[in-house]
């Protein structure tokens, strides 16, 4: 994809890519081009590197080897490779959940032992109501004082990771019928760590050879993420950092400010970025910044940690996954501080082309030769302040002649949670899901769609996300978004209330205008996909739309996915009964007709959900809308009230 217009639809991205080309700086698109053509065996999932008798490959044309040295055929090899990716994706989200649960335990610990605050003295309980609600779910006496409750809760949450038997507590949030389906299939997750380990065990040489069984084990592991690790991450972050409320913000590279010290937070775990928000407001550091000739300190985010601080503080978002290098190439970033996940190894080299300092903070994610200032909940503010200070001091090293910040920035509204959405829809005094359900039942809303996931240079950046979402809202489908997908649509102006008038169908327009919401709701980061699961369960509990998530007129999509985490999310959505379409390219199972057919056709009779693969946004929208319409028919609902809006 040499052509810049083919690389991205986003004008800011195009502008910085031109600069990168002029200055001979390689970006992900160039490196992706250098990888072409990519290995067909890998794309088809037919390469097995599990044991040292291999690497073995299956000949997709049927002439050569049809089994590996051990005898594993294409079905076993593709299913095993896929299952390993599910385990890795689940491990990433769930380990994030563990860290935040650990932070909660440190907060409660410290409060008990010292006056000054505790081992995590920079944090406190910010959402007491949610703490109480969670405590009640875990059978903790909510009459206890805050710290005792938090202590007991964190202990029980951490036990969910090491649990050996029984069922994860959060699975009880799913509709009864869904819980029954899981029980019948034997895929109710028992313990978060156990499911990851057991799945990895089943994929080693000479264990599970039944592709259907491997995929079921994959679903159980994914459920331990969606209804376990990720859900813990979301809920405990709300307790410790505060539950988001709808909030205005700005997005795209234009949020970087020329005369300010620019600090970009990038990664996933908001315990770090939250402290960066505090440290960037430190009067001492602002004074220092002014002394260095800057007007102040400007904080912006990339990827999911951006979504977290956007949702809670309205901190601007500089961009999504494919823009991480571009932020540095503007020449205006003093420090990019990173924690874990989705941080391109290439950042180091790009940063070396400028004065930008890349700072790693997690002992889990280090780069050789890069400044490492280790962050922990115990030294949270101190270490973050040190990083912000480094940024301020680095302002003088900026070469002003090389600063080119694109003008593009867009307004957005974010901060919708399963609690907040429905206070808005139902009003403060009847904050229920009733109005939402009524809107779907009456056909004013055709249904719901979750559009989530990453960017991938395989697809024109942001094109699939925005084209798909526009097509969905045109057909009166309310779209719920997280992650880099939400950022993509925000940049194109779909996350402002005014977008309803411009793009939505008549029914969705009526709802958006009546309650003042955008037609596309930003629910947060990728771990916040768990918010979609709980919201869907509450829609079912409200009544009138069936007994199970699979009855809902709803569908999911990860249009420009690249991460293993996306596969895991897809697995827990499908295992929860959702029809889920993957764009970019299919899973690496196409080398096995059996496995691919099972994912796309066979699973529906098993879980009520299924996968679909489609690399065209309009066709994907058609598939999702057809599914939604079918579910409306099955529920004997009236057809959608209005024809699709103008294209």
């Amino acid at each position: 994809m040499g052509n810049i217009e083919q690389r991205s639809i986003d004008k800011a991205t195009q502008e910085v890519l031109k600069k990168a080309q002029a200055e001979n700086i390689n970006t992900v698109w160039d490196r992706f081009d250098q990888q072409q053509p990519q290995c067909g065996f890998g794309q088809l999932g037919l390469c097995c590197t599990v044991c040292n008798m291999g690497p073995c490959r299956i000949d997709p044309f049927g002439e050569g080897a049809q089994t590996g040295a051990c005898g594993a055929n294409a079905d076993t090899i593709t299913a095993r490779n896929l299952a390993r990716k599910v385990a890795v994706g689940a491990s990433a989200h769930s380990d994030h959940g563990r860290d935040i649960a650990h932070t909660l335990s440190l907060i409660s610990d410290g409060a008990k032992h010292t006056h000054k605050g505790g081992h995590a003295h920079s944090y406190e309980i910010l959402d007491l109501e949610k703490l109480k609600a969670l405590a009640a779910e875990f059978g903790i006496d909510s009459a206890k004082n805050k710290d005792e409750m938090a202590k007991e809760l964190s202990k029980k949450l951490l036990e969910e990771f090491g649990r050996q038997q029984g069922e994860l507590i959060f699975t009880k949030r799913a509709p009864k019928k869904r819980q029954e389906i899981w029980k019948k299939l034997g895929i109710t997750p028992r313990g978060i760590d156990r499911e990851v380990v057991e799945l990895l065990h089943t994929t080693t040489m000479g264990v599970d050879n039944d592709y259907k069984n491997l995929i079921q084990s994959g679903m159980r592991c994914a459920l331990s993420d969606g209804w376990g690790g990720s859900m813990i991450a979301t809920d405990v972050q709300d307790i410790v950092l505060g539950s988001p409320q709808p909030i205005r913000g700005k997005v795209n590279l234009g949020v970087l400010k020329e005369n300010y010290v620019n600090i970009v937070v990038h990664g996933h775990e908001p315990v770090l970025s939250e402290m960066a928000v505090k440290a960037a407001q430190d009067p001492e550091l602002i004074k220092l910044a002014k002394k260095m000739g800057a007007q102040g300190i400007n904080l912006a985010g990339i990827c999911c940690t951006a979504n977290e601080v956007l949702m809670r503080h309205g901190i601007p978002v500089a961009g999504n996954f494919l823009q991480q290098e571009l932020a540095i190439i503007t020449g205006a970033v003093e420090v990019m501080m990173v924690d874990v996940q989705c941080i391109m190894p290439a950042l180091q080299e790009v940063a070396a082309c400028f004065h930008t300092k890349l700072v790693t903070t997690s002992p889990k994610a280090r780069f050789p030769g890069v400044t490492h200032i280790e962050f922990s909940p115990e030294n949270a503010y101190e270490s973050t302040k040190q990083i912000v200070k480094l940024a301020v001091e680095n302002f003088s090293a900026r070469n002003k002649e090389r600063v080119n910040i694109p003008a593009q920035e867009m307004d957005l509204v974010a901060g919708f949670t399963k609690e907040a959405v429905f206070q808005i829809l139902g009003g403060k005094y009847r904050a229920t899901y009733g109005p939402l359900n009524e809107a779907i039942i009456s056909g004013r809303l055709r249904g719901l769609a979750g559009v989530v996931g990453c960017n991938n240079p395989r697809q024109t950046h942001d094109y699939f996300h925005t084209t798909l979402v526009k097509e969905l809202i045109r057909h009166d489908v309310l779209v719920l978004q997280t992650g880099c997908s939400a950022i993509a649509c925000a940049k194109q102006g779909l996350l402002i209330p005014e977008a309803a008038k411009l793009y939505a169908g008549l029914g969705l327009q009526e709802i958006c205008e009546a309650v003042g919401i955008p037609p596309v709701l930003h629910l947060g980061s990728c771990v916040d996909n768990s918010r979609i699961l709980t919201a869907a369960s509450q829609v079912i509990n409200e009544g009138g739309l069936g007994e199970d998530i699979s009855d809902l007129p709803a569908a999911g999509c990860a249009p420009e996915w690249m991460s293993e985490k996306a596969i895991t999310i897809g697995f827990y959505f499908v295992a929860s009964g959702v029809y889920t379409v993957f764009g970019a390219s299919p899973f690496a199972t196409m080398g096995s007709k059996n496995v691919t057919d099972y994912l796309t056709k066979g699973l529906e009779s098993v879980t009520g959900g299924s996968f679909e693969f489609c690399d065209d946004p309009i066709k994907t929208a058609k598939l999702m809308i057809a599914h939604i319409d079918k579910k409306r028919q099955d529920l004997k609902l009236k057809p959608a009230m209005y024809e699709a809006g103008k294209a």
Partner: protein
Amino acid sequence: MKQLYYEVRKCLGCRSCEIACALAHSLSGELYKALGEEKLSMPREKVLACGGKNYPVSCRHCEGALCVDACMAGALVFDKQKGQVMHDAERCVGCWMCVMVCPYGAIRPNILDKMPLRCDKCTDKDEPACVAACPTQAVIEQEKVKAKT
């Protein structure tokens, strides 16, 4: 007259050339679709391993080729202008004599199709698919050179 050459030391045996070759001769030209086509396209080139080295093997388009001599149906003809052994599918009876006589083992029988599988140098493309696909540039297309003996 351009000819395909192989830098044997660079070949890692990834078989990307095989996949690219089969795709180049499929109806759709796309990996995920080609595998579902009724008449499955097959690679004309094969990577064989021998003595610790990998040898991509495909038709050398020899002048005075044994396969041309052996073809009793007259389906194989050496086209001097193109510098290439051409195959006329209409004439071919699938007797496999060409397969038997090729000293390089570069012609394979396609049992389903009853046609020999031979490199056609991708003359309909700017560059042969195997050359474009090779991640280590082990497949080279260049003017014919006389081998030093």
